[in-house]
C-alpha cells in the first residue's frame, strides 16, 4: 500500500499506573489511504484513543509507544524531533477532539484562532490569513462569517464551536485528519448537521480521515472502512458494507446484535447482550482477547492467540473459528409475533393512569441585572417545563424524548420531588403529590423512585453496596436485620450480581455494575413508578443492552411503570410503550411508540428521526435538517416553540398562536397548526432498502 497517508505497523502502547503497567494497545496495524475515511470503533478501554494519541505523538506523560512504527506519507513519525513534529502537527496532520469547549482558547476570538493556525504554518500575511479564515467559515456553513469571526468561544453554541474546530482542522489542507468522537457531546439534530458538514468537507479537500468513535450508526453513515478494536487489539477490519452485512468476528457480531434498532421493540424479545466484562489490561490474555465473553468459544480459543486472517472479500479478522460461524442475522420486529405486541399495547393504553401530570409548569427566575432592577422591569423566568400534561399507567413505559434543554430532566425531577413545580399538579393514585419529596408521605415516597444517568455519581463512594441497598429497606420499614440482608441478596440476584457484592465499595465495580446496583436500589423500595433519567447514556453499547434487558425484565415481573427520559430514539423505540416528544418545555407529540415512530409526524419528530445515526447501511433516512440553535427558553413568545427552526412552518400563525392538539383516532396527539390530513401525507423518514444478496 504505497498510497497510504498513514501506515501504523504492529503498534503497542503502554501506560504506567500505580496498579502496574496497562498494555492499552498491542500489535495494532492499520492504514489510511488518501481520501479514505477509516473508522476506528471500540468501546471504552478498547485502546482506540490511545492509538490516535500515539499517532499524534500526544500520549499522556505516563504513556509510551513500546513497539512498532507509525509512518506518515512514508516518514517515520516516531523518529521525528520536537521541531519537525511541530511542523507536521496542525498543518499536515490535524485533529478534532470530542469537546470543542476545551479545544478553543476562551480568551481569543475564534476568527483569530483560525487565522493564527494559518499564520503559524504557512507564513501568509495577516490580511490574507483573515480572508482565508472567513472563506473557511463560509465553507463550514457558519452564517454571517464576518460577525462570527469576532466572537469569543463562549458566545457560540456547541454546534457552532465544533464548526470552528473543523474549520481550524481544514485550515492548512491537512493530508490526514484524526477525529476523536467529534459529535459525541452534541444533540442529534446538531450531530446530523456536523456529520453532513464533515462529509462535505471531505469531498472538497479529500484528506485521509481516521474517525474514532463508539457509535456504529455514525460509522454506517459516512465511513469507507472500519477497524474494530477490543481490549487493545484489532479484531476485525473491512469495508463498511461488508462489516455491517457480514461481520466475521464474534465481538463485531455481538456489537451489531446488541444495538437497539428502530425495527425492534421489547415485546420481540431481549437484546443480544454481550455478557461479561473487558479483561484486565494489566495482564492481557495470552489467547484470544474475546474468548471469555465469546458465545461461540471452543477449547481451541483459549490455547493461542489467533493471527489476523485475511478474508476473501477483503479485510481481516482475528478469530480461528470465523469460517465455522453461521451467517449473521439480526432479529427484527418481523421475526416476532407482531400480533401479540399490538394486543399488549392496546391493553396497556386502556388501563387507568397511575400518575397524572396536569399542566405542569416549572419556571426558574433569572436574576435581574442591575439596570433591569433599577428600571423596575419584571423578573424573567426560564420556562423549563411550560404546561405539560401526561398520564402514566401501571406497567407502562412512557418515554420522554427531546434534545438538551427541552425540559425532560426538569419534568423528571419535579415528579420525584427534587424540585417544586411553579404551577399545575401531579396526582399519584388519585392523591395530589406535594412538590418536594420531604413534604410527601413516606408511603408516597416509597412508591416513586429514581435512577440517574451517571453511574459514577449515583452511589456514595464511602458506603458499601449492601448499605446502599439496605437503606431503603430500613427507611421504608420493609425489612430489618437478617431479613434485610436476605432481601439485599435477592435484589443483587435480580440484577444479576453475585451476593458477595454486598460487601464491595462502588470503586470496585464497573460502570455497568454500578448502574445495576442503582437499579436494585430503586427496586428495593418496591415502587410503582421509577423515573429513569438517561440511565444508559453513560454506558458502553454492550453493557447498555444488558442493562436495558434487565429494566424490561424487572418491569415485566413487577408491573412497575417507567418514566423513561432519553435522547436516544433507538433505545426509546425498543423500551417504550408510549412516547412524548418535548421541545422547549412543551409537548410536540404524544402517543404509542408505534404511532410516534410512523407518520403522521410532528415536524420536530420528523427531524429527530432523520437525524439519528442508524447502524445499518441498508437503511435510508430522508434528509430533514434543522437550521439554527435551540432558542432561549426565556420569554419564548406566544406561538409554537418550534417555529424558528421548523422546515414546515406555515407562516405568521405559527409565531402568534399556540398550536392546537390534533388528535388521531388512536389517541395520538400532535400539537401543530398543520391539519392532521396534511401531516398524514408526510412520507416515512426511515426506510429499509431491499438490497440484493451479493
Amino acid at each position: 500500500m504505497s498510497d497510504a497517508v498513514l501506515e501504523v505497523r504492529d503498534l503497542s502502547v503502554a501506560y504506567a499506573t500505580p496498579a502496574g503497567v496497562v498494555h492499552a494497545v498491542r500489535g495494532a496495524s492499520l492504514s489510511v489511504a488518501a481520501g479514505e475515511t477509516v473508522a476506528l470503533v471500540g468501546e471504552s478501554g478498547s485502546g482506540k484513543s490511545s492509538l490516535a494519541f500515539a499517532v499524534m505523538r500526544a500520549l499522556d506523560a505516563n504513556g509510551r509507544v513500546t513497539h512498532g512504527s507509525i509512518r506518515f506519507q512514508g516518514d517515520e513519525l516516531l523518529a521525528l524531533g520536537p521541531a519537525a513534529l511541530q511542523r507536521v502537527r496542525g498543518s499536515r496532520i490535524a485533529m478534532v477532539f470530542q469537546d470543542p469547549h476545551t479545544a478553543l482558547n476562551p480568551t481569543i476570538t475564534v476568527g483569530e484562532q483560525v487565522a493564527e493556525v494559518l499564520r503559524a504554518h504557512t507564513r501568509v500575511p495577516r490580511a490574507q490569513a483573515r480572508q482565508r479564515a472567513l472563506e473557511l467559515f463560509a465553507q463550514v456553513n457558519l452564517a454571517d462569517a464576518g460577525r462570527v469571526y469576532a466572537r469569543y468561544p463562549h458566545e457560540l453554541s456547541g454546534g457552532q464551536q465544533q464548526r470552528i474546530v473543523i474549520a481550524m482542522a481544514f485550515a492548512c489542507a491537512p493530508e490526514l485528519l484524526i477525529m476523536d468522537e467529534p459529535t459525541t457531546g452534541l444533540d442529534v439534530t446538531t450531530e446530523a448537521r456536523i456529520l453532513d458538514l464533515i462529509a462535505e468537507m471531505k469531498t472538497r479537500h479529500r484528506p485521509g480521515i481516521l474517525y474514532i468513535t463508539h457509535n456504529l450508526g455514525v460509522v454506517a453513515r459516512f465511513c469507507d472502512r472500519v477497524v474494530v478494536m477490543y481490549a487493545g487489539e484489532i479484531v476485525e477490519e473491512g469495508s463498511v458494507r461488508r462489516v455491517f452485512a457480514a461481520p466475521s468476528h464474534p465481538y463485531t457480531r455481538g456489537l451489531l446484535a446488541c444495538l437497539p434498532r428502530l425495527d425492534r421493540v421489547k415485546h420481540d424479545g431481549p437484546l443480544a447482550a454481550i455478557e461479561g466484562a473487558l479483561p484486565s489490561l494489566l495482564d492481557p490474555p495470552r489467547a484470544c482477547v474475546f474468548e471469555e465473553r465469546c458465545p461461540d468459544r471452543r477449547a481451541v480459543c483459549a490455547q493461542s492467540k489467533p493471527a489476523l486472517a485475511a478474508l476473501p472479500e477483503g479485510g481481516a479478522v482475528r478469530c480461528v473459528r470465523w469460517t465455522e460461524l453461521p451467517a449473521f442475522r439480526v432479529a427484527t420486529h418481523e421475526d416476532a409475533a407482531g400480533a401479540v405486541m399490538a394486543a399488549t399495547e392496546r391493553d396497556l393504553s386502556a388501563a387507568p393512569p397511575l400518575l397524572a401530570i396536569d399542566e405542569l409548569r416549572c419556571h426558574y427566575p433569572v436574576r435581574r441585572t442591575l439596570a433591569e432592577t433599577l428600571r423596575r422591569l419584571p423578573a424573567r423566568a426560564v420556562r423549563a417545563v411550560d404546561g405539560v400534561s401526561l398520564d402514566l399507567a401501571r406497567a407502562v413505559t412512557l418515554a420522554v424524548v427531546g434534545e438538551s434543554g427541552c425540559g425532560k430532566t426538569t419534568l423528571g425531577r419535579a415528579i420525584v420531588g427534587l424540585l417544586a413545580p411553579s404551577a399545575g399538579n401531579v396526582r399519584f393514585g388519585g392523591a395530589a403529590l406535594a412538590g418536594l419529596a420531604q413534604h410527601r408521605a413516606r408511603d408516597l415516597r416509597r412508591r416513586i423512585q429514581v435512577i440517574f444517568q451517571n453511574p459514577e455519581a449515583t452511589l456514595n463512594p464511602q458506603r458499601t453496596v449492601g448499605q446502599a441497598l439496605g437503606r431503603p429497606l430500613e427507611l421504608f420499614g420493609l425489612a430489618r436485620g437478617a431479613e434485610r440482608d436476605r432481601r439485599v441478596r435477592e435484589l443483587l440476584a435480580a440484577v444479576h450480581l453475585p451476593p458477595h457484592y454486598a460487601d464491595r465499595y462502588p470503586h470496585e465495580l464497573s460502570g455497568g455494575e454500578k448502574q445495576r446496583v442503582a437499579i436494585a436500589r430503586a427496586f428495593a423500595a418496591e415502587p410503582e413508578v421509577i423515573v429513569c433519567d438517561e440511565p444508559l447514556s453513560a454506558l458502553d453499547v454492550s453493557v447498555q443492552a444488558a442493562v436495558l434487558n434487565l429494566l424490561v425484565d424487572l418491569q415485566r415481573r413487577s408491573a412497575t411503570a417507567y418514566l423513561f427520559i432519553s435522547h436516544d430514539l433507538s433505545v426509546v423505540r425498543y423500551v417504550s410503550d408510549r412516547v412524548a416528544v418535548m421541545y422547549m418545555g412543551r409537548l410536540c407529540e404524544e402517543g404509542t411508540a408505534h404511532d410516534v415512530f410512523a407518520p403522521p409526524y410532528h415536524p420536530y419528530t420528523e427531524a429527530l428521526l432523520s437525524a439519528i445515526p442508524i447502524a445499518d447501511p441498508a437503511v435510508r433516512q430522508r434528509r430533514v435538517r434543522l437550521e439554527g440553535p435551540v432558542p432561549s427558553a426565556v420569554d419564548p413568545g406566544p406561538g409554537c416553540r418550534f417555529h424558528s427552526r421548523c422546515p414546515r412552518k406555515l407562516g405568521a400563525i405559527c409565531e402568534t398562536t399556540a398550536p392546537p392538539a390534533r388528535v388521531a383516532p388512536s389517541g395520538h396527539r400532535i400539537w401543530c397548526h398543520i391539519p392532521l390530513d396534511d401531516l398524514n401525507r408526510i412520507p416515512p423518514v426511515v426506510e429499509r432498502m431491499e438490497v440484493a444478496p451479493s
Partner: protein
Amino acid sequence: MALTLSRPAVIALPRARRWPAALVAGVAILGMFAIFSAVGPWIVPYDVEQFHRASALQAPSHAFWFGTDRYGRDVLSRVVVGSRSTLTMAAAGTLLGVALGLVLGLGSGYVGGRPDEALMRVMDIVMSFPSLLLALLVVSVLGASAVNAVLSIAVVFVPRVARVVRSAALGLRTAEFVEAAQVRGERASWIVTREILPNLWPPIIVEACVRMSFAVLMSVSLSYLGLGAQPPTPDWGLMVAKERAFLVQAPWVVLFPAGAIVTLVIGVNLLGDGLREWLMARKSADE
C-alpha cells in the same frame, strides 16, 4: 521498514510510589515530638526546674548537650519537655477550630441560600482580621493563659476551615447519591452525616494539617508575648522570650528552642503535603 524501539518498555516506565517521602518524614518528625511530649520528663537527663548555678550559660558540652541557660538549667531537657506545651496547645486549638469550622461549614453548605450567605459574610469579617491580631484580641479579652490561647487559635481557624468544608459540601450537595437520598426522603441530619461527611474526610484531614502548622506558630507566638503558657512551664516561645537578652553571649539558649519550633513546623507541613499526595494517589488508583 518498521522501526522497533528496543527500549525495555516495562523498566523504562516510571512507577508510582506508594508512600510519599514527605509523608514518611512528616510522620517521623511529628512522632518524635509526640513521644517527647508524652514521656519527656522521664527521659531527659535533668529536671527542667533544676538550677546548676555553677554552670550557668554554659556552651553545649558533654554534660549539657544543648548548653545551659542563665540559671544553669539544662536547655536540652527544657526543649524536650517543652514540646508538650506547644504541641498540646497547637493540637487542641486545631482540633477545636476544625471541629467548629466543620459543623458550620457543613451546615452552611448543605442548607445553602440566605443562611449560607449570611454566615459566610460573618466568616469573611472574622477572616479580615490578621490572624495574630485576632488571637491577641481574644486572649487580651479573656486573660492570658494556655486555655485561652487554645480558644483564640480556634477562633482564628473556624472561618478558614468552614470555607473549605463548605465548598466541598456544596459540590456534594448536588451529587446524584445525595439527590437519591433526598428522593427517598432521608432527614437532613442523615444526609449530612452519612452521605456527605464521609466523603469530606480527605480535604478535612489535609486542611487540619495545614492549620496545625499555623497553630504551632501561633501558640509559640502567644507564649513569646506572654499571653500563652505561663512561667515556670517549659515552653519554646517562653524560652526564646525570656532568654533573648543572651542571644549574642550564649546563642544556644535561643537557637535550640527556635530550631525545635522550625523542625516541628516543617514536620507538620511535610505531613500535610504527604497526606495530600497519598490521598490523591489512592483516589486515582481507584479510578
